[in-house]
């Protein structure tokens, strides 16, 4: 399935899409939505016809709380997970026995892809409750035949003892918890020599964090992507190339859209990931707006598997429209972080001057960046705005500032300040 021929994949996707739409027709919300859109599932004859279908939004799932969107009777549903519900009612996800089988299969596929097998000892150091990461990985790892330690979270010293005493070879946790583990292990004087694979997900993490985790834990670190609405983790995963994530096209029909207009974007363009799951029984969804920003990667992968998506670079809610061009703050961050001249902090100001959008970026200079010569500073400013222009297609004014002068943030940083008033 991982290296299925493109034409066979398209046939399979279409067959499964038709089945999924049939499944969705059992849900009141979709009966209404398809009627309003004036389309019947029979009119979907090609994969491109999916564009005629309406989107599904998270708030619609919340409105269906608790079981309003289930396509199967409760007696066929064998498990419930929910999202945290930080933005209103939690989203409730139901699973039939077949759903759990599909999901475990995907997790098993991902873990096999990165070389894990029945010889591995796997510590699953994530929350084991309603959060999908715990049981999802647990069943996938058991399916492969790995020795699974359901350590869950907390008691970090005990976690470290288990890694050492049980000879754990692979661990799954959030990247921030992994960093904490590394710190505590160092303070205990433990080197965790058996550990070789780290699977990290559920929160965004950068390449520099990857380097740090690999150095301090002695693992090869892999990015895992998923969302509860699509079962949970396992939707997309890095292969050993670790250049983008393989998203499983036999189970998920992928589109990238402009979050403002809803138009589908060309391969390679960055936008919001929209997924129509193809094998979900209990909670079928049509064109679900994930809110995650990525792009479909054009170049094939050396491993021979299917088309990848770029690592998630942000949330579509954060998108800015500047002089008609869509800009994601994560793109700016990506450019600046790659430049050695740029220090820890930066702030982006967006203003409207004489009906034109202006983007001004204040950048703290790094220690390495200062040669002492004025012309080098001017050159540096030019280089930074040049790199931004290449990446964004926008002219920006870059101002170098002294280190330590920009505000620091506890928790989520607010690096973009839009000072444009309402039009």
């Amino acid at each position, binding site marked *: 399935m991982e290296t299925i021929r493109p034409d066979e994949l398209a046939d399979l996707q279409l067959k499964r899409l038709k089945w999924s739409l049939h499944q969705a027709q059992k849900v009141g919300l979709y009966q209404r939505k398809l009627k309003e859109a004036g389309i019947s599932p029979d009119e979907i004859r090609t994969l491109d016809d999916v564009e005629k279908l309406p989107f599904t939004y998270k708030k619609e799932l919340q409105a269906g709380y608790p079981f309003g969107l289930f396509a199967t009777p409760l007696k066929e549903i064998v498990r419930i997970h929910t999202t945290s519900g930080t933005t209103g009612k939690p989203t409730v996800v139901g699973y039939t026995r077949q759903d759990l089988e599909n999901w475990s299969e995907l997790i098993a596929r991902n873990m096999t892809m990165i070389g894990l097998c029945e010889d591995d000892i796997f510590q699953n150091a994530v929350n084991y409750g309603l959060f999908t990461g715990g049981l999802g990985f647990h069943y996938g790892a058991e399916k492969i035949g790995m020795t699974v330690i359901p350590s869950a979270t907390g008691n970090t010293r005990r976690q470290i003892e288990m890694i050492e005493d049980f000879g754990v070879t692979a661990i799954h946790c959030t990247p921030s918890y992994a960093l904490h583990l590394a710190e505590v292990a160092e303070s205990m004087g433990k080197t965790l020599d058996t550990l070789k694979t780290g699977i990290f997900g559920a929160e965004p993490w950068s390449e520099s964090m990857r380097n740090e985790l690999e150095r301090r834990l002695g693992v090869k670190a892999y990015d895992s992507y998923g969302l509860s609405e699509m079962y949970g983790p396992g939707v997309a995963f890095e292969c050993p190339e670790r250049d983008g994530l393989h998203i499983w096209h036999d189970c998920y029909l992928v589109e990238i859209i402009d979050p403002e207009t809803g138009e589908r974007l060309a391969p390679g363009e960055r936008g919001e990931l929209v997924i129509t799951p193809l094998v979900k029984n209990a909670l079928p969804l049509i064109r679900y707006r994930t809110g995650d920003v990525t792009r479909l990667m054009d170049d094939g992968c050396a491993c021979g598997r299917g088309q990848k998506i770029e690592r998630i670079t942000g949330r579509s809610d954060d998108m800015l429209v500047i002089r008609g061009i869509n800009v994601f703050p994560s793109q700016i961050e990506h450019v600046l972080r790659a430049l050695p001249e740029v220090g820890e902090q930066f702030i982006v100001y967006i203003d409207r001057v004489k009906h034109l959008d202006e983007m001004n970026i204040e950048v703290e*200079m790094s*220690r390495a*960046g*200062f*040669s*002492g*010569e*004025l012309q080098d*500073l*001017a050159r540096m*400013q030019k280089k930074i705005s040049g790199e931004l222009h290449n990446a964004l297609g926008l002219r920006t004014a870059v*101002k*170098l*500032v*002294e*280190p*330590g*002068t920009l505000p620091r943030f506890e928790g989520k940083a607010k690096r973009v300040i839009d000072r444009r008033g309402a039009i």
Partner: protein
Amino acid sequence: MEKSYIVKQISIFSENRPGRLAAIAGALRDAGINIFAFSIAEADGFGVVRALVDRPEDAHRRLTDLGFRVSFTDVIGVKMRDEPGGLSDIASILGDAGINIEYAYAYSGKDAAVLILRVDQAEDAVRQILGHGGELLKASLFR
């Protein structure tokens, strides 16, 4: 031998806003570091404060600890007659030798005026000035 006349200027990145020079000068005062001469070069929104101080290493460490971006720049200090023609003598020597002056500033000290020069070929400049009977500040003055 030319090297013994190449002195370390400290260059400090500074935003162009009130109080920045005061912060730099205050830090040097607190460390008991004497400033022989300084200048400010400014561009769009920021500048570089250049200073010749008695203890450049200490000044570098002190300012870096306070979070300033500081670097050393090689310059030479040429003594000049504090009377008409003093600057002309030195500039002519360098000009005739094809040595380019990138920037310069000066101070009038107890025994002579001193011209601080950033040139493209520092060792050549030292040779030319000594060869024409000029006098230079020794690097050993600065520790």
